[in-house]
């Protein structure tokens, strides 16, 4: 079938699905998600066509001679289209079961499909006009989905998100205007062709604005503050969509503008991106690990992973500006691979959190425990997601982080001293991030799924419905598959890498990843096979050496008191206490201890403990800015007296001023 027909059928499937979601009959509403599945499939084929064939332009819908609604796909769009299709396919399956008994499910289904369509439109936009319309549709649809639960908390979060995302859009509009003024073109291809006319310092302004504008959507620190507000109140499948795909649109924008349209820039662009990425990764995971609310923890961990992706993007930009195109291609491949991987495992984890919240009736880890026995498959998929996100072999996160390490280590081949020092430090930041992430997910999985149930609800937790499990499985299983066979996923993104860096990283040969420049090699499949071989070998050896022994089941060691209770288990808060002490300069914790005595100081009646960390960026960046705006707004309000005569006076003064200066 033609590329165009895939596009058309995809759009039709999603639009019909969106409309039928509004039908009040429950059966039709649920069936609508099957149409979304077909839509994702159509777009998947579209994506495969885009990465193999030459860039394709689609028929134009002209609004006026200036503004036309035009779509165009190239290899980069193709890779993002494939990613969006794979993830939305799984999330739609999950939604079939999950939304069955939800309130406002029709509204949810409608905007769910609109959001997916807008994601496709963003990566397929040919010109600025189309891009901005798609971008705004995405913002509005996601805003409406975030505020779907009509609670005070949700509407505040939604408002905060709407304001933040529009600040980002403002920067994007300005940078588009700058590009238009320098090149006289509205479409990305035309701008790319005419970019030589643009002065270098204006280019740098565009770069900074792109980093701020798209960085707000991507959730870069300190522009991340909407993420921990919006995700926890959004339904889990929406959170998966936003965290897995929508924030990646920010990454897409940065790559599109800074590496495609503008080609390349001075070295400090790349170094800035590496620095911003390292800070986001580190602070993101440090804020994540102390959270006990499962969705909040995952939300902050998204900030971390965007940082990791940007480490790769930054390294690629840095190498490109030094003319080291082969190295640049390795780094970009790492970044794009992590885009796909993060969408997969974060999708699985958010869907998992939805099943847990529904099954155990709470999102707070401190109220869970022992869920693995009650929700075995959800637990298994959650564990697969956790292993991937902690970059543990042989899962996909490990492969993309390994490539990121390799590209950062190749920094020593760069001629500049700064690059030589910055890139290994980026690698050390990645190592630290990985170690904190591992601790965080040991906590998240260990406290929620292992041990004894801490509440009655957790004790009665039920496994999710089959469609929810299939949806999660479709995201979790590829985490292992793409880890074992990275060549498959790499083949989807290498055309884009070639288009952007002019080089093909000679990465894979016979199932082994090899970095050509250094002969560093990795074969996750061989790692797994040898691991399984060794485990089986030792199992047999033990049987032979030790003979058959019996296993006695008994209580856990309780130091002689009789019977441990669930409340004696280690808690999530206690688990991260050492970190709160060690990194107290970052957390700025405060504690509140109220002890009531019967007879001071010997007989304690009750102890009340509260701990809190300082939201650093809110307090020292956002509050001063919003405070300043409020003060200025208060002053401006003096103009608004409500008196008609005064307003007529303003008009008169304006008229006089115009008459004087107009001539």
């Amino acid at each position: 079938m033609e590329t165009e027909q895939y596009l058309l059928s995809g759009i039709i499937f999603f639009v019909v699905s969106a409309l039928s979601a509004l039908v009040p009959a429950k059966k039709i509403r649920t069936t609508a998600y099957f149409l979304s599945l077909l839509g994702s499939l159509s777009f998947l084929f579209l994506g495969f066509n885009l990465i193999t064939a030459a860039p394709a332009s689609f028929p134009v819908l002209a609004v006026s001679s200036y503004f036309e609604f035009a779509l165009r796909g190239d290899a980069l769009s193709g890779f993002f289209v494939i990613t969006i299709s794979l993830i939305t396919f799984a999330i739609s399956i999950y939604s079939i079961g999950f939304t069955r008994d939800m309130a406002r499910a029709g509204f949810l289904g409608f905007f769910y499909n609109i959001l997916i369509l807008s994601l496709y439109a963003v990566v397929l936009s040919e010109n600025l006009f189309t891009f901005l319309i798609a971008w705004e549709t995405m913002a509005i649809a996601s805003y409406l989905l975030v505020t779907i639960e009509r609670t005070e908390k949700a509407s505040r979060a939604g408002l905060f998100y709407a304001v933040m995302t529009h600040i980002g859009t403002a920067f994007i509009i300005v940078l588009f205007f700058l590009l238009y003024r320098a090149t006289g073109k509205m479409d990305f291809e035309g701008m790319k062709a005419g970019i030589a006319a643009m002065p270098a310092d204006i280019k740098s302004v565009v770069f900074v604005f792109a980093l701020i504008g798209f960085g707000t959507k991507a959730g870069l620190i300190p522009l991340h503050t909407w993420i921990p507000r919006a995700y926890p109140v959004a339904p889990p499948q929406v959170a998966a969509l936003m965290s897995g795909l929508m924030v990646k649109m920010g990454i897409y924008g940065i790559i599109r503008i800074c590496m495609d349209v503008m080609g390349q820039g001075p070295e400090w662009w790349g170094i800035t991106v590496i620095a911003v990425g390292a800070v986001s990764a580190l602070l993101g995971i440090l804020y994540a690990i102390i959270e006990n609310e499962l969705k909040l923890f995952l939300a902050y961990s998204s900030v971390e992973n965007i940082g990791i992706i940007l480490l790769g993007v930054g390294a690629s930009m840095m190498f490109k500006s030094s003319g080291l195109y082969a190295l640049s291609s390795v780094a970009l491949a790492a970044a794009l691979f992590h885009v796909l991987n993060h969408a997969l495992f974060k999708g699985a984890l958010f869907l998992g959190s939805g099943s847990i919240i529904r099954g155990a009736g709470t999102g707070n880890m401190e109220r869970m425990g022992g869920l693995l026995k009650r929700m075995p498959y959800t637990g298994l998929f959650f564990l697969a997601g956790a292993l991937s996100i902690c970059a543990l072999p042989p899962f996909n996160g490990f492969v993309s982080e390994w490539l990121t390490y390799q590209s950062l280590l190749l920094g020593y081949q760069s001629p500049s001293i700064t690059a030589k020092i910055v890139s290994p430090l980026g690698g050390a930041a990645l190592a630290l991030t990985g170690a904190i992430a591992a601790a965080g997910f040991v906590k998240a999985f260990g406290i929620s799924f292992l041990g004894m149930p801490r509440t009655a609800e957790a004790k009665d937790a039920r496994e999710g419905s089959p469609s929810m499990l299939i949806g999660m499985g479709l995201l979790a299983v590829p985490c292992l598959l793409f880890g074992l066979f990275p060549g498959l996923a790499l083949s989807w993104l290498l055309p884009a890498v070639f288009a952007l860096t002019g080089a093909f990283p000679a990465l894979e040969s016979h199932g082994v990843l090899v970095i050509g420049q250094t002969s560093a090699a990795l074969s996750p499949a061989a790692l797994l096979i040898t691991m399984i071989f060794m485990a089986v070998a030792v199992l047999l050896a033990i049987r032979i050496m030790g003979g058959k022994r019996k296993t006695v089941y008994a209580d856990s060691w309780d130091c002689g008191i009789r019977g441990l209770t669930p409340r004696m288990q280690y808690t999530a808060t206690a688990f991260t206490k050492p970190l709160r002490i060690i990194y107290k300069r970052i957390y700025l914790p405060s504690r509140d201890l109220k002890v009531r005595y019967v007879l001071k100081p010997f007989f304690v009646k009750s102890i009340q403990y509260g701990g809190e960390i300082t939201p650093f960026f809110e307090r020292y960046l956002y509050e001063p800015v919003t405070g300043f705006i409020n003060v200025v707004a208060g002053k401006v309000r003096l103009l608004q007296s409500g008196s008609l005569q005064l307003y007529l006076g303003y008009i008169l003064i304006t008229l006089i001023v115009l008459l004087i200066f107009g001539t």
Partner: protein
Amino acid sequence: MHNFQFLIIILFSPLVNGLIKKLKASMQGRVGPGVFQPYYDLLRLLKKDMVVSTVTSWIFKATPYIVFAATVVAALIVPVVSTLSSFSITGDVIALIYLFALARFFMALAGLDAGTGFGGEGSSREMTVAILVEPMMMLALFTAAISAGSTNLVRIATVQSVNFSPSHLLALSAFLVAIIAETGRVPVDNPDTHLELTMIHEGMILEYSGRYLALMEWGHFIKQMVLFTLAVDIFFPAGMVQASGGVTVAAAAGIYALKMLGMAVLMALVESTRAKVRFFQLPSILGSAFVLAFLSLVTHIMMEK
């Protein structure tokens, strides 16, 4: 034959541990158990019945095998007496560190699985120590990798025969601190105690008994010897069987034994002369090792010009 050199690590790792204990005992004026005691312990554990907590899930039972297998695969990657191993395509030094991370991840989960305070405390502390150690160890390894031009261990061990440049000495000292922390030795952890308030590694595996405990202990011995081998591979790889000749296998084995003896003496010395520090003093020790690793990187880049 070169592909079977990992068996040296698997078979002799308990001996290295026994040796360290014996050396420590004689430095402290005790007789101490014989050097083969770890083997007797492992055999005894293998022949025992097991007690498993009813609270635990399959994670608890799978963990010993995952830990052991991951550690053994790490031993496969590292060149022991010869650089002619074909396992260098399986993974590099980064894969090796992450295999240990995989083992640690499951060990920490198993610590939480029984729902006891000790397990949770051990897990929490182990992961915290890993957070402090990992970036420092990686940075030290990066310096070595950058100077050899690759993270491929065979390549690192082939390129230079003795690495005693200032930057390598700095990296080596940072890496030795990392080894002490990773193997749970004084001053970071005390491998000989079951005292509740001080234990890290022992707390995590407290619920294990019988053959599971044997696997965990053996895995720990293997990890220790892999780290020792990694240190000698990177910093003084002289005397290995190389493609370009090098020394004979017998000579290489003898030299390797001497190197391991050296590492054992060093560990025994550190453990005998240092006291275990408070947990929250660890950041300053490990943080200064991070500074060493960073200086080693800067020195390398500055001197290379």
